[in-house]
């Protein structure tokens, strides 16, 4: 790791000021940034630590509206009793991220701001039609996730929370990369008041995306059987030593089917 200046932000306003220093980066759980710095692949001049900002913590459930502070750890999301009732699929998803050490440090805000193409949360937020709240504005998930490690966030813009309406039914099925345990394919299906949304992570060569053909099939009939014989095109899917595009296409259909079965269970 190269030497770096560390700042602990007391508030979001404080963080917004500090992040203007040199080539500063925001630090939340650090589960991606710190390993990248250790291997000298990332070299920010300054780190602005958001993890002690109280305003960014915690899960709020108000009627059907769920708001999760950006600094909430995966463990807190996975174990929040209110969330487990309101949207168990998201709590379950958080329980599948990394290992216990990662889940106790990594945060939802950090994960979506990083937008790793194999991360789990982007699929959930896209399928749940969530809104990403920043210190400047509110951004719809459809507009937020832009590609591989790319988001709509401007320089220095800080994610403060995500908010969404609890779906009637939802589930997440993840097929893990055997080495990294990230998703080779993760499919989040959600049936809400505005219809069915299905988002896929781990597979797209431009990051998380919605599967229009699966959404269409499930809009007609929200049942696993609706996906029998479903063929997902392999075009625009990633291919690497762990999985070919064809294999990922197959897994999207299989995981979607299993997710629907779980959502209906």
């Amino acid at each position: 790791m190269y030497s770096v200046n560390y700042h602990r932000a007391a508030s979001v306003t404080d963080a917004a000021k500090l992040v203007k220093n040199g080539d500063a980066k925001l630090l939340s759980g650090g589960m991606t940034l710190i390993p990248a710095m250790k291997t000298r692949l990332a070299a920010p001049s300054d780190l602005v630590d958001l993890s002690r900002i109280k305003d960014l913590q915690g899960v709020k459930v108000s009627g059907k509206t769920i708001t999760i502070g950006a600094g909430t750890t995966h463990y807190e999301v996975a174990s929040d009793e209110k969330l487990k009732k309101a949207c168990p699929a998201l709590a379950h998803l958080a329980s599948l991220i990394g290992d216990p050490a990662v889940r106790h440090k990594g945060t939802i805000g950090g994960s979506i701001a990083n937008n790793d193409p194999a991360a789990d949360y982007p699929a959930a937020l896209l399928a749940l039609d969530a809104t990403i709240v920043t210190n400047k504005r509110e951004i719809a998930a459809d507009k937020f996730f832009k590609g591989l490690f790319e988001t709509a966030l401007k320089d220095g813009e800080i994610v403060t929370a995500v908010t969404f309406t609890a779906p009637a039914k939802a589930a997440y099925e993840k097929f893990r990369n055997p080495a990294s345990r990230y998703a080779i394919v993760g499919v989040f299906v959600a049936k809400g008041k505005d219809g069915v949304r299905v988002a896929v992570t781990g597979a797209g060569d431009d990051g998380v995306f919605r599967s229009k053909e699966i959404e269409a099939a499930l809009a007609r009939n929200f049942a696993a059987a609706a996906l029998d014989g479903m063929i997902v095109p392999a075009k625009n899917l990633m291919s690497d030593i762990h999985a070919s595009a064809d294999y990922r296409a197959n897994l999207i259909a299989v995981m979607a089917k299993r997710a629907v079965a779980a959502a209906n269970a």
Partner: protein
Amino acid sequence: MGIEGVGARVARKEDKRFITGAGRYVDDMVVPGMKHAAFVRSPHAHAQIKKIDVRQAQGMPGVIGVLTGKELKADGIGNLICGWMIHSKDGSPMKMGAWSPLAFDKVRYVGDAVVVVVAETKGQARDAAEAVDITYKELKAVVDAPKALERGAPQIHPEADNNLIFDWELGDGKATDAAIQAAAHVTRMKIVNNRLVPNAMEPRAALGHYDKAEDHYTCWTTSQNPHVARLVMSAFYNVAPENKLRVIAPDVGGGFGSKIYIYPEEIVCLWASKKTGVPVKWVADRTESFLTDAHGRDHVSTVEMGFDKNNRITGLKVDTIANLGAYMSLFSSCVPTYLYATLLSGQYDIPAIHANVRAVYTNTAPVDAYRGAGRPEATYLLERTMETAARELGVSPAELRRKNFITSFPHQTPVIMNYDAGDYAASLDAAMKASDYAGFAARKTAAAKKGKLRGIGMSNYIEACGLAPSAAVGSLGAGVGLWESAEVRVNAVGTIEVLTGSHSHGQGHETTFAQLVNQRFGVPIDSVSIVHGDTDKVQMGMGTYGSRSGAVGMSAVAKALDKVEAKAKKIAAHLLEADEGDIVIEDGTLKVAGTDKSVPWFQMALAAYTAHNLPGGMEPGLKETAFYDPSNFTFPAGCYICEVEIDPETGTTEIIQFVAADDFGNIINPMIVEGQVHGGIAQGIGQALLEGAFYDASGQLLTASYMDYTMPRASDLPSFKVSTSNTPCPGNPLGIKGCGEAGAIGSPPAVINAITDAIGVTDIAMPASPSTVWAAIRAATKH
């Protein structure tokens, strides 16, 4: 056996320090004035070095020295060598290319060390390493061994035309061809044994310290054989004369073969210490380990196995291309030859065998022995072929094997080995019983009802351990002898130190060697200390690899114990005024048989050192040394059965059960043996399902971290059912065969046989990842 003797399940003495984080590894060693090294490594798989500019790096904060290969060469430091001479079938010696510890004219794989930076801190050394400016002219690279042999492939070393290191054969080609020709049935396969990265928990490390006042060098290093390291570094690399070089291998966190060899880094740390005047430490990071630890396996073979009309094997013909990587590592040449082709008879009576092996340079990390070393490759080839043959012939895989088993011993195979003892049917029966082999069909039907594919596969392995005798391996090209040494020091109060040339890097010698002493003299194992891993403390020894610590290392201890016992009995007889032939040792006491006269062990020891009352002419003291050179290899064998269930939708393989029935000869500590088997099976299942080192065509290692290289996790593995049915080894005084590698040798073919059985294909590539299995199922159902 007593509660601490041979055969007892004694908890490991050394585990207290390991599991409380109190072990002492090379990185824990601190010498006054110690500084840190970082290596500048080639980012290219194949390139000429046009220019090395170190000026900017020299001016960086904390930098003490920036040293290059030219300076190393000017100081007379030699090239790394391969210590086992193989001659091609045309009689020419193997073509060994130069391997400079620091490359100066050409780099040949990603990770090749070029420059070393010594600085006050590790961070400063790394910062300065990044400031070293090397101009390369990139050359075309080749990573695949068969491609490296093609006309027009990039030429890696000038010494080896077309990258061919040797073209070697073993066995009777004519007789084998005739047998195949006349066979009623011939099974033919192409067999690929995938490349693996050893992944010891502790990365390699070295601390070199040149003491100017004494004109003496000390090297702390992660070695499985510190004496061999000292010998090679002095005799071949000209680092220091043997008497002025002390090599210490303290606690070492796993080796699996990868820490047998002498690597550039320990040589450079010693040389750089003299050059810069400060002790120099280097510890590999995990990426350096992936890139530069000697890899394992990487064979591509074709095989033909002929059967007569009664399904008896008549001949076996094998052609293998072995990828040795960019340089010949210390024992690389013996792995695909004498540790491989000599085991191709397996457990079977095969009248004619011929193997041809071509060893090839590629632009990849050097390849050398890795847990099993050649024997896993032989077993995989043979047991995959047997399974396929059984399917082709329409007979039970178990019965085809049983029919061809060797049943009388000694048995001379057509490929050098003379098997001394074994009972292969006993292991087969035990494994079939433990796995309820007979009930498999019903389980397969039940699984099919759930939409799952069940398969069962077996593997009947044999391996050769102990690597001996020295004269025999010498005649086959070994540059060293493969005996072992021991010294037993009985202290004046009767406690005992055993100095062994074997080296423990996880095997539990501090416990098992003490159990052997306890068995002899009744001394509690807590009063027996095992000393190893330091060339200043221990007499010359050969180290630990090839499952040799028990069969060879402990046999040397037994020989020394014989001498101690003889002298102890003489002293006791003198003290008790009895005939030495009447003295027996029981429960820590020397007794006159059939009487109540006795002298406690400690009192006899004290008498040896007070020397007030010793037999006339006897030297004081009680300390004996022995060197033991075995008369033959040992031949552990066994039967492994694996049952899998595959989810055809995702290609995921779940191991439902894994049974191991081994014959290890006599066992000192069953718990430690089971641990060895468990670890070996985990590595073997790792090879079959999870692990694979992949380079892209340009020579970049794609699996250079745990993000991409899949290590087996506990959740990937079932609880193993292990058992032993042992035939003592007649070749050594303890009847031990060895157990360190069996698991890794026997398991990959059992797993792949089960998977191919489940999905109805002839072959599938290792690692059989979900993606690979799914593609195989899809390809099979398309036809």
